[in-house]
């Protein structure tokens, strides 16, 4: 457990040593801020539904950019060898890196908390969906971080890692809009794989154990996949 924290702290600090953190956070805030507020006053309602509805698609591109370096860079630079010859297990490494990335995503979301605060000055805002939305956003970022971590473990090239990660996250996000392509008998199963619908249901303020379980499963599969890739490389 201590080793997980050591690795997570190191990886988390790493984000802020390099300019990546600041660039990614700025881009995220500019994009979400612009998309959200450009239509906010047109709707004339004091809620954040619009913000949360586009969050998955933005996360699908931003989170893989956060996670792409976690393994690729280590393998490319060779520090992977140093990491693996220190007394840490694969689980420590995978979970530590995952926690660092998720924590970083939370940091990225943190400034957006100012939106509901400002909105509350100009209208009555229902706190339920906002709280639900942020809890859902944490689960969503966790799921995407696990997917991104997995794609980063596949290759030593960060750009390839980003593209693979973004592709998987994007498919997970839009899959429930593609349901008319699949035979009706399996639509329900396919629909269950969509990250967007699970996220939106949490963001309504309804915290359903099925949705939580979905994100936990994505996280588990992503991390386990990473673990297997590491073992395979070894």
């Amino acid at each position, binding site marked *: 457990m*201590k*080793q997980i924290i*050591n*690795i997570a702290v*190191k990886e988390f*600090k*790493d984000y802020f*040593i*390099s300019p990546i953190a600041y660039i990614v956070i700025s881009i995220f805030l500019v994009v979400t801020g612009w998309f959200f507020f450009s239509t906010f006053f047109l709707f004339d309602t004091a809620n954040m539904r619009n913000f949360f509805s586009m969050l998955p698609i933005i996360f699908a591109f931003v989170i893989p950019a956060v996670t792409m370096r976690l393994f690729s860079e280590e393998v490319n*630079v*060779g*520090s992977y*060898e*140093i990491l*693996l*010859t*220190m*007394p*840490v*297990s694969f689980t420590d490494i995978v979970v530590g890196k995952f926690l660092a990335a998720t924590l970083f995503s939370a940091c990225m979301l943190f400034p957006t908390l100012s939106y509901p605060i400002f909105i509350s000055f100009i209208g009555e805002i229902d706190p339920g969906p906002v709280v639900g939305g942020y809890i859902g956003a944490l689960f969503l970022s966790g799921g995407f971080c696990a997917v991104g971590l997995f794609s980063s473990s596949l290759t030593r090239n960060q750009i390839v890692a980003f593209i693979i990660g973004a592709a998987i996250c994007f498919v997970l996000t839009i899959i429930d809009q593609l349901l008319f392509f699949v035979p009706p008998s399996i639509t329900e199963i396919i629909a269950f794989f969509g990250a967007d619908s699970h996220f939106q249901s949490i963001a309504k303020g309804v915290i359903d154990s099925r949705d939580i379980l979905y994100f936990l499963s994505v996280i588990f599969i992503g991390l386990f996949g990473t673990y297997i890739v590491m073992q395979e490389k*070894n």
Partner: protein
Amino acid sequence: MIQVKNLTKYYDSFCAVDGINLEIKNGEILGLLGPNGAGKTTTLRMLTGFFKPTAGDILVKNISILDDSLKVKELIGYLPESAPLYHNMLVYDYLCYVAKIRKIKNEHIQSRLKELSELCGLSSIMHKSIYELSKGLKQRVGLAHAMMSDPEILILDEPTSGLDPNQIAEIRQIIKRIGKEKTIIFSTHILSEAEATCDRIVIINKGKIVADDSTQTLKNRASSNSNIQLSLYSDGVDSDQVVNHLKSLTTEIDVITKESAEKNLVSFDIYSSSSKDLRRDIYLKIKERDWIIAQLTQKSQTLESIFHELTKGD
């Protein structure tokens, strides 16, 4: 201390390490020699638990690396080739991180860092980013990394490659200093280095051990296979006559006439299978006939030529 049993590693169908058996005693400095691609790094990577062997086993203090690699990793400090460190970290931050991973108690970290920075000469670069450092400095940070937990075994992969002569001397000195109480395994393809620092030399070629002996024995073995080069002024000297005359000295020698570099000389190579110094006898033998010697030198075979002989391609 370390037992390597029938260690084998295949990369797909390519056999990098082919059934190596080794036993390394406590406190030994072992040099792993071999040409490029002989399997040195692969062997070291398996010893440190970075690669899983395809077959065979490694026991460190009777703990199998297959059963409990974490425990083994705790006992070993490792410096990979060209010290691939986290280049965006400060030296100080990096060493603190390593100290934490190596389970050094928080209150001891500072004092340990101080010791290491003195030992490896890092005090002036602690506040620098690792990517700013020259290769030699990186190597020293890597050494500090390897020695962080004061491990009983140190494994260094080509610790001096790419360094300038001063830096090589420094690193060698550090190795010698710490080698007094630790077991050290290091790989190199520089023979003089192995000769200068190691107690024992293992030469591998194409994944197999081709020589495994103490440095002294290998050196003796090298010098026992000596040859003597002899040149005489050629006025009135018949080379066949010389050959026969010298051969009558002892049956253990072989004399071969060779082309001489200078016109007025006749030259010979004299090979001997005994370890006795023959120069005195040869001189006396020649003196009987009053031939005039232009050159009489003993060339002992160096470690270099043994290495060359053992590792040359088919």
